[in-house]
């Protein structure tokens, strides 16, 4: 199979996962992909963790609702989505999802309440390593096999490690190592275990005091039980991630460092997780500006004021720098294409004018995705007008 166009990918997949380092515009790219699919008549859900207020406002949905919210008809009309296409968004607050999971998975309502009111849980469950990623996978799991949506686009949590999301099950697995957590929970066991238990208890009592140690024990006991239930879902998801129904996109910004980092993560996923990326998205590219003429080659009107001559002289170095930047972006795009090879894709999305509202940005990027060139200039063009 040769590299799919965005349209082919949106039509063929059930799930698209957008990965990438923080600050590359992952959330906007996810929402634009979802919009582009909805405009093609798909029923689409976009899931984002901890999204910006701005995107929620653009879509006309609340942040942190308990379940996905379908966009209102007038909003869909503004975005150019027509039936049977539809677009829903779920903007997740990690704490809220975690609380929901606790309520659903605890053995008894009483245990759920004990955990929810535990001071350790209340203060730090959102900070547990891998918890947000875990939440994302859990959210996704609920929609796999559900035919309510043709496509789910998942925006992964911002993280320094672009692909941490993929090994969340292993990371949170540290919690599930019952041999470890048993040590903190008083109970029976062999001599060695009892000795280790006492040691840890003593260290914790000395360090934190008895109350905190007891809170920790309750937290560990109840929380790891819940995660034990979830682990099976994560296992199923790992297999699902390797299927044809899913495509992973790595979003990057047009900077040397960002692209180097993207390559690093591509290699790591391939070698360590056995997962293959569908392709790259180079976001905010100015490559389209490379074809514009230099200002000093333009013919000036005969009656041009003297100020124009001076201004064009001052503009020259800025124009040269801009041309250089456009060439750099074009080079990065071709590097990504080479790296993607025959089967992967490297799409280029334009940098939209600063000041474009979130709604305009979504529409602009969805348009760009459906343009075959993919590097077309954004609406309005590169003029000063």
């Amino acid at each position, binding site marked *: 199979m040769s590299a799919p166009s965005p349209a082919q990918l949106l039509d063929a997949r059930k799930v698209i996962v957008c990965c990438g*380092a923080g*600050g*590359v515009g992952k959330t906007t790219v996810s929402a634009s992909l979802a919009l582009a699919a909805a405009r093609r008549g798909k029923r689409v859900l976009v899931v984002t963790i901890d999204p910006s207020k*701005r995107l929620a406002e653009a879509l006309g949905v609340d942040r942190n609702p308990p379940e996905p919210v379908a966009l209102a008809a007038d909003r869909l009309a503004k975005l150019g989505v027509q039936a049977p296409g539809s677009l829903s968004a779920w903007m997740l607050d990690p704490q809220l999802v975690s609380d929901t999971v606790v309520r659903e998975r605890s053995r008894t309502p009483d245990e759920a309440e004990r955990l929810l009111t535990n001071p*350790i849980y209340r*203060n*730090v*469950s959102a*900070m*547990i390593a891998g918890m947000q990623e875990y939440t994302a996978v859990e959210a996704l799991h609920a929609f796999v096999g559900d035919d309510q949506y043709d496509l789910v686009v998942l925006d992964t949590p911002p993280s*320094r*490690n672009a692909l941490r999301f993929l090994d969340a099950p292993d990371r949170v697995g*540290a919690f599930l*190592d019952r041999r*470890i957590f048993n*040590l*903190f929970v008083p109970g029976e066991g062999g001599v060695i275990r009892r000795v*280790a238990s006492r*040691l*840890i208890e*003593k*260290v914790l009592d*000395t*360090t*934190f*005091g008895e109350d*905190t140690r007891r809170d*920790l024990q309750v*937290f*560990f006991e109840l929380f790891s039980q819940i995660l034990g239930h979830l682990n099976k879902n994560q296992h199923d998801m790992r297999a699902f991630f390797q299927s044809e129904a899913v495509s992973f996109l790595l979003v990057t*910004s047009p*900077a040397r*460092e960002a692209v180097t*980092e993207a390559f*690093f*993560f591509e290699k790591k996923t391939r070698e360590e997780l056995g997962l293959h990326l569908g392709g790259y998205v180079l976001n905010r590219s*100015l490559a389209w*500006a490379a074809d*514009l*003429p*230099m*200002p000093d080659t333009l013919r000036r009107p005969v009656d*041009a004021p003297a*100020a*124009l001559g001076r*201004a064009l002289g*001052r503009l*020259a170095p*800025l*124009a040269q*720098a*801009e041309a250089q930047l456009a060439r*750099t972006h074009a080079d990065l795009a071709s590097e990504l294409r080479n790296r993607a090879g025959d089967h992967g894709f490297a799409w280029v999305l334009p940098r939209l004018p*600063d*000041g474009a509202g979130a709604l305009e940005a979504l529409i602009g990027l969805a348009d760009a995705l459906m343009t075959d060139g993919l590097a077309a200039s954004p609406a309005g*063009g*590169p*003029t*000063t*007008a």
Partner: protein
Amino acid sequence: MRFLDRRIHLITGKGGVGRTTVTAALARAAARHGRRTLALEIGDPDGGYSPLGRLLGRETLSETPARLSQHLSVAHLWAPVGHEGFLRSVLPGGPLIKSALKSRALRKFLDAAPSFHEMGVFFHLLLLLEATREDGQPEHEVILIDMPATGHTLALTGLPDLLLGLIPRGPVAKALRRGQAFMNNPAQAAAWVVTLPEQLPVTESLELLDGLARTQVPIGGVLLNRYPDDPFDPEERAALDAFMAQHPAQGGLALKRIDQAQGAADRLRAGTDALIVSLPEVWVDDPGPVLEAQLHAAMRRTP
């Protein structure tokens, strides 16, 4: 309060604004002023990629500061170092500390327990701050930290408060208070928000400044990165706009950026009383040297 007189600088800001580049340039500039400077990033437990290391010429970093030049070292903050440090400081000597440090179970617990990773990072930082040379002078006179994404920054700066809520007494609480007193002292510490002169980054920086103020970390200021120079007088600009409207050409984006930058800077000034330092737009592959020169000069006078 000059930049160089403070011991610790937290360089924060959203991804993509050039935070790591600015951190590296600040570190080089401080070292050129002859201060023993340590540049830090927060070690990723998954290991591997070090953006700060790369900019300073090291593929990977370790928890032991690596000397790059006479006055400049680089390392990462590594939670297990902090864990060991605080265990050593709170446990009585003898068999208990020995078996505690040897216990794999305890290590695993400290890795897995929520917020203990951040706590380890915090304690490692405290160890580096308090390290002294034989003459009693600080081992690292100026410490700069490339702070990760916004949410993590607030998690770390807010950590002492959070933990003190959970653990109000005992040796850990004492150490946390010591760290907090340091981090909240404007004569010793400052947080710098790196941002771009664009609409969205400015909005997010104002939010970050509010968040930092709530965690009581003193604000050093805002570093407005990639601020474009405006070389035109009004007459020239008017002539240019009229001409370029008819003839799209290279340089058009630069003009837009100049206007947007001025608008964004105005909004920033209206939204905060913090010091704002503009850093030049540098159109080359490696902005490091130009930034460094600018920051080197600014350090003499920056309040």
